[in-house]
């Protein structure tokens, strides 16, 4: 992919030449010494080749179709003065810059790169450090944010910004970025048809990925690790989440993934490992959970409030402290043909399916929901005994909540 993209850039540059576009070099010993100056003299579709060096500039406005190409990662130092690059034109490419020291403000969301009402943008190979907001797409469609590295040093939520933020933007591809140490790694609000692939979002203060009111988005093969609260997907429809990894999100309100008011989503092939809660589901309906791995979570799945007609099939539930937790006695969801490592039944007819149903909700999880301190009694013999009696005759847990066909072997 990397080579392919490099090739694309070359082809693009080459074709630019064909359209009689020219390349303007910017460096301390060149004729043009600053980026702003370069933009001023450049014509549409020109390329600014920014040579290695440090450019102390901010409020750089790109208002015509240009390519800003960094040579050996030139540094643009905003000196904490405010926003650094603002794009207000279509067809702008930013490539290979190292941007540091974005100003922090409590009134405006200063970003390292802000794209405003523009189309066909490409932001790639950019490294951002010491930032407030990173890449901010505002009402901008049909663009690509590719292979950037955003390393924040956020400490408090109130004075930190998001790594990649999309606001009223459509058809954007966010691919192969690394985001860490910001408030929300990737944040989407009112943004539809977004593809988020192969990103690594770790060690962020709040969420690794945060969706609000954004429909028809897909995210695949991303890794979200050790974020303050994991990933939150809220108030959105028809989201596809495939092959992502959610890992080590520990804490009181931490989850691998939080689903709130999500309908008609597909969640498959994901791995939820060592999270306090693997998936926390609230008011979400008609979701298919298939082929996911839930490994060593505190709670693999915690269901709160009304959740209807969700199906869980062919998932692996491995060594979770609790597999499923419900806070109500009603169940309208289907669990079928999952593998549960806590299953103790047998398979006499050797068809690979356990002969006794598995009840994934333990009485103990009900008790812990009520009195959280009882968690210290986890795995005690006494709890095992009362869990067993509940299993035999369910009183507190929904009695139709069971996997009638538990698998004997893990699904692959």
């Amino acid at each position, binding site marked *: 992919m990397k080579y392919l993209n490099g090739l694309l850039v070359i082809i693009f540059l080459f074709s630019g030449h064909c359209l009689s576009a020219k390349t303007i070099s910017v460096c301390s010993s060149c004729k043009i010494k600053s980026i702003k100056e370069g933009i001023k003299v450049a014509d549409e579709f020109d390329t600014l080749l920014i040579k290695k060096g440090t450019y102390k500039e901010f409020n750089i406005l790109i208002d015509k179709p240009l390519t800003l190409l960094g040579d050996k990662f030139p540094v643009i130092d905003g000196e904490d003065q405010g926003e650094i690059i603002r794009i207000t034109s279509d067809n702008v490419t930013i490539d290979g810059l190292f941007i540091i020291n974005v100003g922090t403000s409590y009134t405006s969301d200063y970003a390292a790169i802000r794209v405003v009402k523009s189309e066909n943008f490409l932001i790639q190979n950019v490294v951002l450090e010491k930032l407030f907001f990173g890449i901010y797409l505002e009402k901008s469609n049909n663009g690509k944010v590719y292979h950037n590295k955003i390393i924040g040093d956020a400490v408090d939520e109130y004075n930190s910004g998001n790594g990649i933020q999309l606001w009223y933007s459509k058809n954007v591809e966010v691919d192969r970025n690394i985001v860490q140490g910001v408030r929300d790694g990737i944040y989407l609000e009112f943004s539809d048809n977004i593809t988020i692939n192969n990103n690594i979002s770790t060690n962020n203060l709040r969420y690794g990925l945060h969706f609000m009111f954004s429909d028809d988005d897909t995210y695949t093969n991303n890794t979200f690790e050790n974020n303050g609260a994991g990933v939150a997907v809220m108030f959105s429809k028809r989201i596809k989440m495939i092959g992502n990894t959610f890992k080590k999100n520990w804490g009181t309100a931490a989850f691998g993934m939080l689903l709130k008011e999500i309908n008609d989503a597909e969640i498959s092939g994901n791995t939820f490992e*060592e999270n306090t809660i693997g998936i926390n589901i609230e008011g979400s309906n008609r979701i298919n959970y298939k082929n996911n791995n839930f490994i060593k979570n505190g709670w693999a799945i915690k269901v709160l409030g009304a959740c209807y007609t969700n199906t869980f099939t062919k998932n692996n539930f491995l060594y979770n402290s609790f597999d499923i937790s419900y806070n109500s006695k009603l169940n309208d969801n289907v669990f079928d043909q999952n593998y549960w490592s806590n299953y103790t039944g047998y398979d006499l007819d050797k068809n690979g399916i356990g002969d006794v149903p598995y009840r994934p909700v333990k009485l103990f999880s009900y008790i812990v929901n009520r009195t*959280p301190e009882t968690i210290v009694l986890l*795995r005690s013999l006494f709890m095992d005994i009362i869990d067993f009696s509940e299993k035999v005759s369910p009183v507190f847990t929904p009695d139709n909540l069971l996997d009638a066909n538990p698998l004997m072997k893990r699904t692959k």
Partner: protein
Amino acid sequence: MLKILKYSFYDLMRSRWSYVYFLFYLALGFVLLFLNNDVSKAVITLMNVIIVLVPLIGTIFGVMYYYDSKEFTELLLAQPIKRSSIFLGQYLGVACSLTLSLVLGLGIPFLLYGLFRSDVIFDFSLLLVTGAFLTLIFTAIAFNIALSNENKIKGFGYAVLAWLFLAVVYDGLFLMSLIIFEEYPLDSFSLAATMLNPIDLSRTLILLKLDISALLGYTGAVFKQFFGTNTGLIISILMLLLWTILPISRLAYKAKRKDF
């Protein structure tokens, strides 16, 4: 003392019970690993076994050995040997042979399975350390009970009751008090209650490895401090040590004052 330990140890090594215990663990280890082929699951099952069975076996063995070796004890008492050496020697003989059976019985199948190449080696060794502690603690408790009860059947009964209380009843009372007082802040109380029962203590130690994700879901600051940092591990191990030292020192104290 070392001589007494040596004789007690040899004596036990020759009794078939040590072998039964050893073979039981050996079989358990092999079954868990080679029939299941799942190390993580094996560790979880082993944890349940260790928390429940090791204290029970330690208790029963301790009481049985004490009463069985009464003659040996009386023979030794007339010899120029310090009293506490006699009892500590016998105690350590039992505790060591039980620990050895446990560690070897479980260790051999895990070694054969290639545990060192697996990342659960730490969980597993923690399990063995906890098992060893529980053996030491419950054998000491059993010796204490036996020492205070001349009547064999009474002593045996009290010892099994003590195990039942610590393994099951205690947690039931603990759970009930948590639910009854649920409006009050309970995290310090629940940690303290955990510390006061060696079985709960060992369970906590293992939970710190196996279920840390769940434990960190609770809001209380005390919990967070305890489970979120190394504090929990250090305090638990110190408490286990205390739990080992207390019954042993009571044993030495009582032994000095008993008539034979």
